[in-house]
Each structure stands twice: as C-alpha cells, then as structure tokens.
C-alpha cells in the first residue's frame, strides 16, 4: 500500500493515545545518502520523523535538523542541503527523491513511497550530503552570453516592438531556474564530460529569439557548436519529461540545431 493511501485511510494521526497501545505514533521513514565532504565516500543513513500532514522533503529535512538522530539512536550530523525560495522558483533544492530528480520543496511526503530515499544529484560534484555544486551551469550561461546586451556609452533608445505571441513563447523558456534536473536525467550529460545540455541550449534559443539579444546570436551559436555543444544531444528527451517548469526543451534543442546547421553552412561557404 502506498503511503498516499495510508494517509487517506488514517486521518487520526494527531491522536497519540489511540496508537500508543502497541506502537508509537506514525513515523516518516527516510534514507539519506550522505557524504561528509567532496572527497569523502558516501554512506547511507536512515531516520524517522514523527508524521505531520503536509510535509514536503525540505520541511522534513528541517524537522530532522532539530533532532538529528538516526534510527539506531546514534546522533548524526544535521543533513546539509541547498534551498532558497521553498516554492520551486530558485532551483537550489534539486535532489534525487526516490530515484527521480526533482525539487525537494515540491516533493510532498504524502505522495511518496516510504522509506523515502534522498540522494544528491550525481551529475554534479557533491559539496556535502544533498548539496551539490551547480556552477557548471552558470559557467555555461556565461559561455553562451545568456543575456541581452543593453549597455552602451550612449543612450541606445527604446527596444524594438515585440510580437506578443513571441513574447509568450519566450516567457516559458525564461522560467528556467537553472535547477539542473534536465541535466541529471540526460544520458549524454556526465560529470566527466563537457556537454552543455538542455538548460544552456534552451537559453541560447531564448536569447537568440529576443529582438535585441539576437545581435549576439552568432557568438552564442559558435559557443554551442564547439566541444560539448548542441551536437552532443542524442534526443533521448528525458529533459523535457523531467523539467519542473515544463519548458519545451526538445523544441529548443531542435531550434538551436537548425540555427547551428545554418550557421555551419554560412561559415562553410564564407558568408
């Protein structure tokens, strides 16, 4: 029986007296893959937290911090994890929950099979426990100039008028929170290669389709036509299935693929 069903059939979680007859109150069981520092070997630790309705994985981790004792009663170090917004807009809390890469803050405990297993994303270097170093994504954003250059020594005037339909299309792409989930699930993206992955390619499409950002499109394309660029995509399309922002990453990759095709042809014939 899944935990979600259990939650529905037993709404009497608060009345401890009822359950005290044979066993203590309901607990949430969680297994955490821990790593003390970037070079240490990982190990598993199991915890129990008193059940409360409405927990998500981050609030569960916060609860654990109050009394970090594992199931054998041994005192443990508080679990380290990254978080920011707690509402799925900053992307900091990405982790692997029950085998699936997602945000800890939107992973509702009542919907999770127990014991809940928490692992750091293994496509990024582990800093400690569940916190990983996502700087590779930021480096790639710099590499492709994922911004609109509006600074000048003089007033550049107002930007061009924009088609609202295109603005809407770009809006979706712009919701990327650099969470790294699309890269964690990508079979072509590895910790020891230099593929840029869906996240960066989507930003190339975003800024190349912006009427002012477009001025740097050749530079962006050159950056993703180098080693580890868009050509390394193998079209497994796990990224688009996993993206918490429902960004059409497969369309972004095909778009940038087309732009790269045109750019390569133009360079070849010397245009």
């Amino acid at each position, binding site marked *: 029986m899944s935990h979600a069903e259990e939650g529905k059939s037993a709404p009497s979680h608060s009345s401890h007296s009822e359950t005290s007859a044979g066993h203590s109150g309901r607990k949430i069981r969680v297994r955490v893959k821990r790593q003390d520092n970037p070079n240490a070997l990982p190990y598993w630790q199991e915890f129990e937290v008193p059940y409360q309705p409405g927990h998500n994985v981050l609030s569960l981790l916060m609860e654990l911090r109050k009394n970090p004792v594992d199931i054998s009663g041994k005192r443990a170090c508080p679990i380290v994890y990254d978080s920011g917004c707690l509402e799925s807009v900053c992307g900091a809390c990405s982790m692997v929950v029950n085998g699936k890469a997602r945000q800890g803050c939107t992973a509702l405990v009542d919907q999770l099979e127990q014991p809940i297993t928490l692992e750091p994303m293994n496509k990024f270097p582990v800093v400690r426990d569940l916190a990983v170093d996502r700087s590779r994504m930021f480096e790639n954003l710099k590499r492709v100039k994922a911004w609109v250059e509006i600074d000048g020594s003089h007033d550049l005037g107002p930007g061009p008028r924009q088609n609202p339909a295109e603005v809407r299309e770009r809006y979706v792409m712009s919701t990327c929170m650099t969470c790294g989930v699309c890269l964690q699930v990508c079979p*072509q993206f590895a910790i020891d290669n230099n593929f840029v992955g869906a996240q960066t390619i989507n930003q190339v499409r975003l800024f190349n389709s912006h009427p002012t950002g477009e001025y740097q499109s*050749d530079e962006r394309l050159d950056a993703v036509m180098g080693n580890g660029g868009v050509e390394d995509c193998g079209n497994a*399309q796990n990224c688009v*299935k996993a993206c918490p922002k429902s960004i059409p990453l*497969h369309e972004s990759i*095909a*778009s940038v693929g087309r732009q790269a*095709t045109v750019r*390569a042809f133009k360079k070849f014939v010397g245009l």
Partner: protein
Amino acid sequence: MTATSAAEASSGGCALSSADKSFLLRRLHSLTGIVPLGGFLLFHFFENASARRGPEAFNETVEKIASMPYLMVAEWALLLLPLIFHSVYGIYITRASRPVVAQYTHCRNIAYILQRVSGIVAFFYIAYHVVSTRFWALFVAGREITFQDMATKLSVPWVFALYIVGVLSVVYHFSNGLWSFSITWGLVRSDVGQKRLACVSMAICAVLSVVGIDILSAFVFKQSILSAFGI
C-alpha cells in the same frame, strides 16, 4: 578564411578550429547515416527484392550491378569508408553514453537506448554480412555471389536467425535515425512535428521490416511469404 567576424575573432574560432571539429564530426556522422548508408540500405532492399522473382532474376540483377561503371570507387569510397566512419564514431558515441533507464521509461528514452543497441548489433551483423558475401566474392570465390549461395547460407537455421535479427536492427536503426536526424539538423522543430515524425518513422520501420523478412524468405522458401499472399 577571410572576413572573420568580430564575433568569431573574439571567441577565437576559425572555421576548422579543434573546438569545431566535434560539431563537424558529429554532423558528418549524422549525415552519413542517411547518405550514403540509409540510401544504400533502400537500394539494397530494392535490388535484393528481385530474389522474389526467382534465382534467375536475382542473378541477373547481381550481374547488372557488377557491370555498373565506377563500381569499385563507389563501393570503397562511397560505401565502405562512410560505413567505417559511421560505425567507429557510432561506437565512440555509444561508449560515451550513460543511459538512464530505471525511472524514465517513456518511448523516446527507450528509442534512444535501442538506437545504440541496434547500432552495435548492426555493426557485428554488417561486418559478418559484408565479409561473407562481398569480400568472399571479391577475394575468395573470384566470382559474383548467386542466389544459390545465399539460399545455402540461409538454410542454416542460426544464419537465418542472425540475418533476421541483423536486418531488423538495421531497419530500426535507420528508421529511428531518420527521426533523430531531422531533429539534429532542425528540419523538424515543434512538438507536434516531432510526434508525427515519430509515427512516420515507426511506420517506415514496420514496412521495411516486413520487406526485409520477405526478401530473406524468398531465398529460403520456394516463394517469398508475401508473394504467397499475392503481394
């Protein structure tokens, strides 16, 4: 290599810098999968389908092709070389992949894994097939291969099974490759377009699979399976 734009200069890129090579190689890999390899696959099915009309028709087709002009150049430079390149680079690509299976069982991910598995199977099958037919004809027999040669080979059950597995692998690999080729080069971009193309490519896969098995059956049985049904 004149008129390098400021953009290119600032990123240190020239048309053939080492950074660009992976792009060119990858696109060349993709292209060779369609032309010449995919094109040859279709031609190969077409020529071999003459086996359905019996031994004489097949042998005649073989002779006709053997007398084609520039055959040597075409075979070695336009076929074997691209095949070796696509295979070797394909194995390199496959080795670099870290498939994610457990939690992602949607069909595109499965297709991605099958593309690699079928590529490897195709590699061994094609190697065996080319050596035991074309190389055998050129270097051992000193004559063209005949219907009877193929019929004898395919009458051995494990060889027949190997051919079926090999042909199905190549057919899947080519059909799904059409799909991923179209996305790689950006011929198809939208979600609906990609979905429709996936249906088309699987339809192509189904048709070519039937044709492939039908041709094989023509060598082994007196009549190909489909022609027994009047097709």
